[in-house]
């Protein structure tokens, strides 16, 4: 399979000890859930895919995105977006500047970038929020901005690291629907790490258990 995100006999080792060993393929527009108790290697998996594991960790095997081998590429050159449990909006930047941080540098001109940010805000029902302080947003608004910031960077795959576990039940269902819908609309392969069975059920895709 050339399209999507694939992990081909991937092993992560630490000082010779195997932490994680798996094979999986995530097709565009689908969500694969990885479940497991804490310590089963979920965050190691994300680190391997993101390219943030450094020595003494060793990653063996191949990680491919749309056919291209990602081995050895730094995180910023992988084209993979990530959403964590916390929104991690940069607290020193305004909402608009956070979104602009994700815009590709190829989009030139202050006005054009400003327009792209405003359009993105409108898309998530937050028109006029560009100058706001991220600290003043509600939990749901923060997640929407974080998601939009990631999507603006035009990733070719999306990783979700327990993205909804800090939310209460109501908001959780709502945000889940939004994230999955937008990822599908862009036909992104999504790899979600979670310990919440409801997340996995809502993802409506393959479920992999670690540990």
């Amino acid at each position, binding site marked *: 399979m050339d399209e999507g995100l694939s992990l*081909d006999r991937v092993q992560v080792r630490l000082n010779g000890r195997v932490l994680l060993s798996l094979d999986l393929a995530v097709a565009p527009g689908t969500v694969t859930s990885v479940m497991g108790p804490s310590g089963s290697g979920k965050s190691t998996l994300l680190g391997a895919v993101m390219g943030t594991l450094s020595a003494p960790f060793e990653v063996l095997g191949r990680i491919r995105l749309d056919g291209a081998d990602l081995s050895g590429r*730094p995180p910023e050159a992988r084209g993979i977006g990530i959403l964590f449990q916390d929104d991690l909006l940069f607290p*020193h930047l305004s909402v608009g500047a956070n979104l602009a941080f994700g815009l590709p540098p190829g989009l030139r001109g202050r006005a054009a970038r400003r327009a792209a940010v405003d359009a993105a805000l409108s898309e998530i029902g937050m028109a006029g929020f560009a100058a706001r302080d991220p600290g003043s947003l509600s939990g749901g608004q923060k997640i929407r901005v974080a998601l939009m910031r990631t999507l603006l960077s035009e990733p070719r795959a999306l990783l979700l690291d327990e993205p909804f576990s800090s939310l209460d039940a109501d908001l959780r269902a709502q945000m889940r629907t939004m994230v999955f819908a937008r990822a599908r609309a862009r036909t992104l392969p999504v790899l979600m790490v979670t310990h919440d069975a409801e997340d996995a059920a809502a993802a409506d895709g393959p479920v992999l258990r670690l540990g």
Partner: protein
Amino acid sequence: MTDVRSQGAARHRPQRRPARVLPAVPMLATAFLLLPVGAGVLGTLAPAFGVLPAAGVMQPGLGAFADLAAWPGLPDAVRLSLVAGGVSTLLSLAVVTAVLAAWSGTRTFAAVRALLSPLLSVPHAAAAFGLAFLIAPSGWILRALSPWATGFDRPPDWLIVQDPWGLTLIAGLVAKEVPFVMLMALAALGQADAGRAMTVARSLGYGRMTAWVKVVFPQVYRQIRLPVYVVLAFSMTVVDVAIVLGPNTPPSLAVQAVKWMGDPDLAMRLRAAAAAVLQLALVLGALAAWWLGERAVAALGRRWIAAGGRGRREVWARRAALGIAGLSAAAVLGGLAVLALWSVAGFWAFPDPWPSGLTMQNWTRHAMTLNATVAETAVIAAVSTLIALTLAIGCLEAEMRHGLRLGAAGLWLLYLPLLVPQVAFLPGLSTAMLLAGVQGGTAAVTAAHVLFVFPYVFLALGDPWRAWDRRYGTVASALGAGPDRVLWSVRLPMLLAPLLTAAAVGVSVSVGQYLPTLLIGGGRVQTLTTDAVALASGGDRRAIGVFALAQTAAALVPFALAIGLPRLIYARRGGMRHG
């Protein structure tokens, strides 16, 4: 496993190609600390053993030491160094331990904490002058008590300041070292799980102070050992505080060595080198003794803990701890107030508690010298801090990107310029610099300051840097930002407050330096500290008030900026207000 590799799978370390400069920064910083200290110690050892080619001396032997041994003041000078250093370090550690045991985690303690930064930034020399102005026979305390309580209408003939036992010197050192040890202990406390350990111990029936000393102190002390060693080495060899508060017949060994260093007579310079080497040996011996003492106390402590005493009557101990700490804070702050008063005092006769008039004349009289000195002080402090901050950021960034973490050995190295007595390596360093063709000007003094500024800046920045949530970096990378953009657009702006605090610490360390300015500058570079200390023997209280206050302001203003600027810059960023 082999299966995976035989299939031709790529084996790679998922790490980016290292940049060229960054990985070299830790090595550079290490060399920067190690070389000057090493060269300096060698450059001091050689003349002590009769080798000073620069002055045409080539008589290898122990002549300088024999000469030193024949100096009648030697036993007193040595005793003073050992007693002042040992006692003030023990007292500072005891006060900090008692206050933390009695009050940490309470509301009272929040007040103690708030006083810490300003107390810490007051330069040693200014604090020493302030203490002298408080407790001298003609000082403010006796004025306030006279004549109604004491009956004095002229200052009594008491030797309080510069007493031969060095008690005032010890008091001055304790007042300045308590905030430093406290700050280090607080940083260590943040890493110990003190809250829950205390809850467990107290639920087992232990009193608050007993519980803290038995359960938390061992963890904290392990972390603050090196800073305590620094305090010991510093207190034994301090020069500026000892000139102001210590006896002068004879003075402490370090002060006497500096006096001899300035002597035009070559024999005196060789004797000075011998004294500096003896001072180094004394410090090493004291450190070894302290290390043995740690072991003895640990053994006794284990027995004490195993005996299971709960220690109940602690009310008075708690009050005493707070009282002593309060007294040492009051000595510094009260001293500053009296300095300020003298700097604007007109006629002020004993025993009047207040001057009969206030005037700006003292300031205008010194304005010319003051302006030039302030400018020189500011340039040296700013440049040395900037260099130190750049090195520190480089080291921490290399640690983050390439995992080049400073090990235990690296930590000792960081403390090296603070552990080796200044008097034992600065003269040699100045000789080495002359040999290398470096003239002792402002640039050389600035470079020497970096040696002492860098360790403090690194320590101040290290914890917040490492505590920074690395997921912000991951998110920024995933958005396409390379490591440099992550550093400049995300990490540094987010760490603005700790960066400015580290810079303020650096400036206050530089402003407070006395010996590096004096010895490396060859007497040609004048800062507020050298000017203030030079006034000590003259006894012009108004001039001392002016210069000591200016020195304090030079150290304090950056702290105020470090607190104020981030609030101003991030006034509309709620997420930047904490952490």
